[in-house]
């Protein structure tokens, strides 16, 4: 190609490249206000209040975050209103945590419609963690302890460490949507509160309509995760029967950690009654014993005692679910997979059907390791 040919081409190409710039909605970091935590609450009249926490990168700002509170009819409208207060362009796209107040979950009908914006607007994130806050959200967004990182980091850190011990569930927006829409399951969300300091030690259970129904303690949440089969490492501290404790007055408590826990759930049906056979195999390592016992000699008794205790706790948890008409484990998913014809008839009142179901729990604890001392 001749030099003039190249020049002629360049003359055509260069104006094009200048004219065609694709990013009309380009946004520089400095000009954006990223809302990392979004809070949804209701006031006494039942109106929606939208909270957001925005980190400020400006070195002249004394406080590290900027909190915005607006009252609005929808989260999206809240975003527009928030934009008026924020320094930069208000952006929800990096949202890390969505905090929903317990009051909203209890009293606001169809609050889950507020989540629509995350799914309809294709650029919104759907992996933001959803947490339930037990209290008024203004306390939370006014909470700036000098010795803690900013709110989103606190919440995420807390959630991660609690999750690593399987003491609560981790639910993203996407998972919440799935659980809300699955007729064979009810949703579960981590629940935290502000009591001098933030603490995450509950798990909120929502009913079929997405309303708050009950809470689980950390221990119960562990068993829930065990039944959900999405964790396999657990730390238990449980009481053992008094007769195993030879020394009078000693605490009848031992602790163990369990790895590679295996749960099997089988479903069958007799007439209009479902029956679940749950088998848990749990190899454990003893980590603490508060009473004198010869572990080697009394291995079988100890294993039996631990199995019985875990089984008792599991049965108590399941009957709690049944009483409250909640199925956070997703037993309905098993019913659908194995007994589809019948499940289809009852799927719209599955939780009632679940409440009638019969459960047969078997736990097999095996002492894999007794620790470094006798």
């Amino acid at each position: 190609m001749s030099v003039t040919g190249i020049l002629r081409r360049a003359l055509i190409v260069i104006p094009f490249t200048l004219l065609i710039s694709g990013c009309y909605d380009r946004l520089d970091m400095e000009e954006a206000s990223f809302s990392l935590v979004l809070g949804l609450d209701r006031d006494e009249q039942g109106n929606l209040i939208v909270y957001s926490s925005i980190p400020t990168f400006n070195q002249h700002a004394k406080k590290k975050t900027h909190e915005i509170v607006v009252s609005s009819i929808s989260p999206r409208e809240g975003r527009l209103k928030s934009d008026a207060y924020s320094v930069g362009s208000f952006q929800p796209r990096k949202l890390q945590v969505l905090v929903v107040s317990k009051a909203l979950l209890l009293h606001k009908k169809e609050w889950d419609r507020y989540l629509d914006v995350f799914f309809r607007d294709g650029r919104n994130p759907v992996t933001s963690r959803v947490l339930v806050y037990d209290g008024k959200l203004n306390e939370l967004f006014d909470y700036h302890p000098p010795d803690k990182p900013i709110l989103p980091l606190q919440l995420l850190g807390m959630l991660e460490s609690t999750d690593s011990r399987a003491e609560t569930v981790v639910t993203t927006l996407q998972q919440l949507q799935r659980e809300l829409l699955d007729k064979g399951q009810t949703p579960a969300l981590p629940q935290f509160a502000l009591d001098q300091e933030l603490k995450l030690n509950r798990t909120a259970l929502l009913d079929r309509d997405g309303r708050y129904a009950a809470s689980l303690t950390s221990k119960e949440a562990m068993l829930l995760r065990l039944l959900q089969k999405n964790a396999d490492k657990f730390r238990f501290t449980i009481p053992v029967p008094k007769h195993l404790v030879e020394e009078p007055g000693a605490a009848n408590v031992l602790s163990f950690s369990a790895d590679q826990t295996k749960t099997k759930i089988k479903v069958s049906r007799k007439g209009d009654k479902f029956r679940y056979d749950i088998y848990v195999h749990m190899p454990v390592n003893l980590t603490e014993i508060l009473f004198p016992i010869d572990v080697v000699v009394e291995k079988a008794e100890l294993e039996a005692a631990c199995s019985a205790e875990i089984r008792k706790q599991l049965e108590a948890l399941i009957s709690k679910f049944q009483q409250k008409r909640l199925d956070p484990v997703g037993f309905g998913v098993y019913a659908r997979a194995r007994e589809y014809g019948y499940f289809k008839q009852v799927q719209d009142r599955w939780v009632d059907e679940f409440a009638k179901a019969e459960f047969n729990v078997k736990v097999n604890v095996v002492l894999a390791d007794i620790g470094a001392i006798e």
Partner: protein
Amino acid sequence: MKKYALNDITLLQYIMINFGMAVSFGFIELPAMMATEAGTDGWIPILIGGFVTMFASLVVIRLMQRFPEGTFFDMLAHYLGKWAGKTAALAFALYFLLYAYDGLIYTIRLIKGRLLPETPAFLIALMLMLPTYTIARNGLRIVGRYAEFAVMISLWIPFVYLYTLENLHPLYLLPVFKEGWKPILSAVPGTFFYYLGFVSSVILYPFLKHKKHASAGLVIANGITVLSYLFITLVCYMFLSPDEAKLIHQPSIYVLKSIELSFIEQVEGLFIAFYAFIFSLSWIPPLYFTVFCTSWMMGKQEHRPHLRVIVILFAVSTYFYLPTYDELENISQLLGVSGIAVEYLFPGIMLVFLWIYVRLRKGRNWT
């Protein structure tokens, strides 16, 4: 007689053109569409539709084997006269034009919806049309090489779905045949739309270097299409709860949104941007076929003037008019119906017709 030998394509290029044309946006749309029709059994109609398509594409090859050195239009011109060939060329030109337009508008809608909502559609169209022209103007071999390239650099896509593994619930797939065979069978015709493109063999066949592998090539192309569809539908149905699968548009993208990597955000954005390569196969080869048909019709060797007109028309038209999502659906439906006619029925009819015609003519010669 070998007038197409100069621009011949390899078997792999042949496979990739066919695979790319078929798979393009089916990968994004098919799971949701099958979920509404057949629930979590939606992967079975895909399999059945795939087998029907394999059969239909073999019919096309049978047809082309009657006249291996020329395109379908040459064949018609040879047997039935010049005007039969020209009519067919015009019909195919219109069909491929519709095919390309549908693919292009779908891509623009998706990019606009997910990546660049505030960028005007005509700019996106312009950005897509520039490379289209540079590729299509160079003839079939370059189109074939481009198809190869586009598929090769998209091979990472199945692997990125591995990150969703922890969120999959195989129990959702059970039981198979939830509602029996009826919804499954009634969903089969809906899959045909997503297999369209194999009729391009009526043009590609004479260009093919090793013609005896043509059938195998089409079966392989179709097989990869079926596998990709199966893969994505199964992933989506294990990820979404059964009733949810009917609600989510473009579940293939929704599933990717669950991925969290420490070094990149919004993996689905990257996916859409890269997937544009595969999307482009739904309009670059058809556009080439369109201008091939029109220039054949006019008896011209050079296809570039026509290509320029069409490319500019496409880009300019989006400035004045961009179909909304439901108008796009109507276009797709039109393409679907004409596709079933042109790709599934027409070659078979032609095959029978030519067979009878040749018999009759031979008979007449004898008497």
